């Protein structure tokens, strides 16, 4: 939890708190549908123009009504104030116009098919917030189901029910306390001790202990995240498609999923995880160490050494999995140096190209793959990362940036076919999000995007 300004952070824990205080224009459901929130409906008039019809009768916690002015203020603020962390997300917005109190037209600088998806990440603010921003964000008001009460830094946030919330009979509890407990063992202990009702980010190995505790339920769901370890394509090893192929063949993904993650992961069938636009089925990558050895021998790579860089503590069980991979690659004659570095250093190493394989995952926020492609498979995006450069893919990504979902699906399928053959990345598994809750909790939804949203949750 970093700030109370919904446009000024990029953190999942902050989102889990602030989505209860502020509403976005659109919401995304757990089955990846974009549904109305403060906008009742929206429509693409052409490739660069969108019209939003706003919900009437909504009020902020301080009583002021929600209107088109709020949308104008919120969108222009985030686009123009480049100090805001989320500013870059909305740079393609050209203009925001108020047609009447409850109709807004947004024009974009280029086709911007992911605009609705990106708007799910932005809570709407009252225009009055602009006058004294610093003061406003110490005691903020939104339109959400809970009002902000207090925030003890590093410890907890307190929220209370908003009795006049625009969705009928929501929220179902009077008070919400969000505690920040970084250590998983302690988080699980607090749940088992009955101090809290929900914990997120549970590890597979903790599940058995939690399930064995009376009064606790464990829930899991496929996440919008795929693990993806990328090669440095400008270095000797990663440059050669035969090496990438051999590495891919030498990794026993099923063992990782079954033995190390205890089944809390799914085999990858295309780079985009299921449920998102673009997902398709390209088969599963085979495990064949003999062929890997043969390919390496044929290509003349006898004493290959790979630097495998990890960003410390970023992904569950990463060090364990990396050591397993090192052993698997060792079996086909590739020596692996594991380098588990603090995140900032690891990222600098990546920028400098000082790695062969980089351990990373990609959560497809906001339930849309445009970002992933733009970052990793365009020249501009990948220039200081993997050095990926393929004009065919670049072209397809640009063509996929239109509002029409059919066109997008088709372009994304083509992109993924190329990537699947080329293997600039290893896709070991789709992640699974695990939560544990008290069995007194009703209507808890295990979210695919790791957010904890308790709008509809009640206590028996």
């Amino acid at each position: 939890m970093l700030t109370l300004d919904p446009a000024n952070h990029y953190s999942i824990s902050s989102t889990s708190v602030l989505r209860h205080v502020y509403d976005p224009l659109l919401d995304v459901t757990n089955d990846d549908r974009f549904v109305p929130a403060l906008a009742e409906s929206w429509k693409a008039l052409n490739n660069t123009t969108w019209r939003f019809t706003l919900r009437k009768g909504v009020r902020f916690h301080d009583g002021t009504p929600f209107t088109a002015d709020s949308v104008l203020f919120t969108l222009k603020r985030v686009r123009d104030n480049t100090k805001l962390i989320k500013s870059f997300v909305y740079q393609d917005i050209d203009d925001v116009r108020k047609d009447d109190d409850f109709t807004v037209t947004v024009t974009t600088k280029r086709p911007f098919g992911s605009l609705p998806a990106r708007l799910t990440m932005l809570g709407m603010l009252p225009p009055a917030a602009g006058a004294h921003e610093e003061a406003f964000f110490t005691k903020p008001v939104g339109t959400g189901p809970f009002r902000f009460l207090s925030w003890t830094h590093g410890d907890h946030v307190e929220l209370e029910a908003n009795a006049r919330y625009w969705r009928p009979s929501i929220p179902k509890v009077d008070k919400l306390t969000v505690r920040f407990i970084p250590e998983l063992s302690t988080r699980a202990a607090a749940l088992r001790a009955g101090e809290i009702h929900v914990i997120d980010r549970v590890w597979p190995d903790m599940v058995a202990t939690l399930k064995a505790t009376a009064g606790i339920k464990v829930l899991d769901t496929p996440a919008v995240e795929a693990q993806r370890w990328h090669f440095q394509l400008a270095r000797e090893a990663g440059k050669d498609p035969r090496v990438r192929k051999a590495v891919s063949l030498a990794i026993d993904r099923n063992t990782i999923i079954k033995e190390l993650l205890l089944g809390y992961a799914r085999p990858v069938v295309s780079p985009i995880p299921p449920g998102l636009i673009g997902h398709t089925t390209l088969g599963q990558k085979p495990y064949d160490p003999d062929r890997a050895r043969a390919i390496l021998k044929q290509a003349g790579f006898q004493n290959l050494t790979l630097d495998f860089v990890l960003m410390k503590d970023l992904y569950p069980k990463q060090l364990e999995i990396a050591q397993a991979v090192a052993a698997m690659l060792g079996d086909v004659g590739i020596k692996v140096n594991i380098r588990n570095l603090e995140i900032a250093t690891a990222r600098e190493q990546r920028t400098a190209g000082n790695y062969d394989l980089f351990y990373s995952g990609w959560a497809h926020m906001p339930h849309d793959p445009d970002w992933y492609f733009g970052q990793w498979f365009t020249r501009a995006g990948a220039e200081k990362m993997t050095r990926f450069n393929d004009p065919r893919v670049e072209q397809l990504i640009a063509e996929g940036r239109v509002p029409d979902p059919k066109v997008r699906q088709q372009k994304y399928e083509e992109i993924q076919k190329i990537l699947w053959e080329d293997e600039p990345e290893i896709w070991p598994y789709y992640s699974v999000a695990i939560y544990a809750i008290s069995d007194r909790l009703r209507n808890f939804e295990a979210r695919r995007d790791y957010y904890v949203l308790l709008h509809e949750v009640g206590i028996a």
Partner: protein
Amino acid sequence: MRAYLLRRLWQSAVTLVGVSILVFVILRVVPGDPAKMLLPEGAPPSAVEELNRHLGLREPLWVQYEIFLRSVVRGDFGQSFQYRAPALRVVIERVPATIALAVAAMALTVVVGVSLGVLTAVRQGTPWDYGGTVLAVLGQSLPNFWLGIMLVLLFGVTLRWLPTSGFGGWASLVLPSVTLAAFPTALVARLTRASLLEILGQEYIRTGRAKGLGERRVVLRHALRNATIPLLTVLGLQIGTLLGGAVITESIFAWPGMGKLVVDAIFFRDFPVVQTILILSATIFVVINLLVDLLYTVLDPRIRYG
């Protein structure tokens, strides 16, 4: 005495300036880009550049330091990159929890450590001594996280006597302070024992005994008093550890202290927060050690104002 005090104050100021320059330079020389840590991986390079400019990181180093010094004089430590709020405020919010934990741990250390030390020294060679030694060994060798998680599981989950984590009320202070105090307590116990044994063997003590002074009086009034000096040195040093080095204990117990704040700030390259904490804790540290040095001279007149 006055000249001595003035000189010590001057030295303290030199230390603080030294710390501030060192922190400032190392933060900016170490690899890692603050804007990249704030923005997600998908952010375009232009956004990274723009944000770094806003954070004031595109000025030459000496200009940045000058701006920093000028602001500090006005009491402004800059805006936290991560929390998007004044760094001083971010840090001060953590002070109550930090002080509560440090004071509780220090009290435990002194009371338990010295008692254990005296006990094992006076009963040298008895089962009391061996038991105390084993405790001291455990205190020194148990990793913080091991002790912390075991205490949480035992007292929080199984027995449910104490809250597992969080900051609020006396009960929440017990487990973290025991965890944090384990190491310094063991150290103090061993040092007390060692010093006492040495002093108890010295002539003036033997003289005291020969004169018929009670053993309790000999130990408490004479021997312990002379054992205080090495103890004070170590305790003074431990205060720094208790204030800033409690990161693992704070993580385990979700304790909103400065130890975790500073480590996270270092990892996320939140320069203003790191600078604020280091200058603040360096100040506290310098003041405490100044006091310790002054105490030496009070306790042991043989030490001149060196």
